[in-house]
């Protein structure tokens, strides 16, 4: 199928993200990138786990972390993962408006998550837990901050796609772009599952 073909609900393929060669290449290339991202986060997790008890007189994980804020952040990001599934569901049904709506909800939830994280970090700094306080603090801010940076990048990416294609509608040129952005968003949630478990919950256990 051709990229610039004008499509209807009847002619739109079942898997629009893989209907063109460009789409197939994007799909494979993106998964390869996610494999690389896994390795990146692995090095940050490894550093964190190795240094988490080196508090150098500063606050420890147990003194710092509060369950309610972590729980709220987790629920926000987990729900935003589901809303982007809804967006892809409507993409496959060739319903551009509903896809945009659900992507908008995803962006809103992601932004709320990011705001919560910024609030959390400023609270920690006020409590004397800065980037250079201890090996633990450096490893913590690098790991969680890199994840937060990914969230910020994902938000800008999805917003850019939404605005750029607002008048264009769905076609086989932009369907792979939306699909790949949603994969990225799910991957951010995958990383967060390990962050809330390994960093926050294990930190609270002691």
């Amino acid at each position, binding site marked *: 199928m051709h990229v610039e073909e004008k499509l209807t609900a009847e002619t739109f393929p079942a*898997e629009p993200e893989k209907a063109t060669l460009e789409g197939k290449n994007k799909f494979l290339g993106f*998964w390869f990138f996610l494999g690389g991202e896994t390795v990146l986060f692995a090095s940050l997790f490894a550093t964190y786990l190795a240094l988490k008890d080196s508090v150098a007189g500063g606050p420890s994980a147990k003194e710092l972390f509060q369950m309610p804020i972590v729980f709220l952040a987790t*629920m926000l990001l*987990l729900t935003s993962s589901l809303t982007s599934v809804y967006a892809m569901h409507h993409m496959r*049904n060739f319903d551009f408006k509903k896809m945009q709506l659900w992507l908008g909800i995803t962006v809103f939830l992601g932004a709320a998550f990011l705001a919560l994280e910024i609030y959390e970090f400023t609270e920690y700094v006020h409590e004397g837990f800065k980037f250079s306080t201890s090996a633990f603090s450096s490893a913590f801010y690098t790991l969680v901050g890199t994840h937060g940076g990914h969230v910020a990048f994902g938000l800008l990416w999805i917003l850019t796609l939404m605005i750029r294609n607002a008048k264009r509608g769905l076609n086989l040129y932009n369907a792979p772009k939306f699909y790949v952005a949603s994969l990225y968003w799910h991957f951010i949630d*995958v990383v967060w599952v390990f962050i809330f478990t390994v960093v926050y919950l294990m930190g*609270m256990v002691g």
Partner: protein
Amino acid sequence: MANHTHVQNPKVDVQYRRKKNAEEMKHQIVSFTLMIFLTLIAFFAVGYEGFSAWFSVPFILLLAVVQVIFQLYYFMHMSHKGHELPALFLYGGALVAFVTIWAFLTIVWI
């Protein structure tokens, strides 16, 4: 790609695909519910005083792994056909991840 099959009566094909998409969305909601449930158990296990760290740490790690499998196979569609190479890339990354974490945990003693 089902595109070449619906030449004769596209409307019927669209109805069939919509139905299949709706069914898949149901599975997605079920997996989301399970993910929320696993998260609640993990938070509860940490908040509950009765569990020792020896139990709750491996337990919540297991819950995280199960939740990530849901995320990968349902939300990211790895259960669908044509995901052999994505699986290779991801498990390759996961293997390096495991070795890296293992190495750091065994060689760093400060």
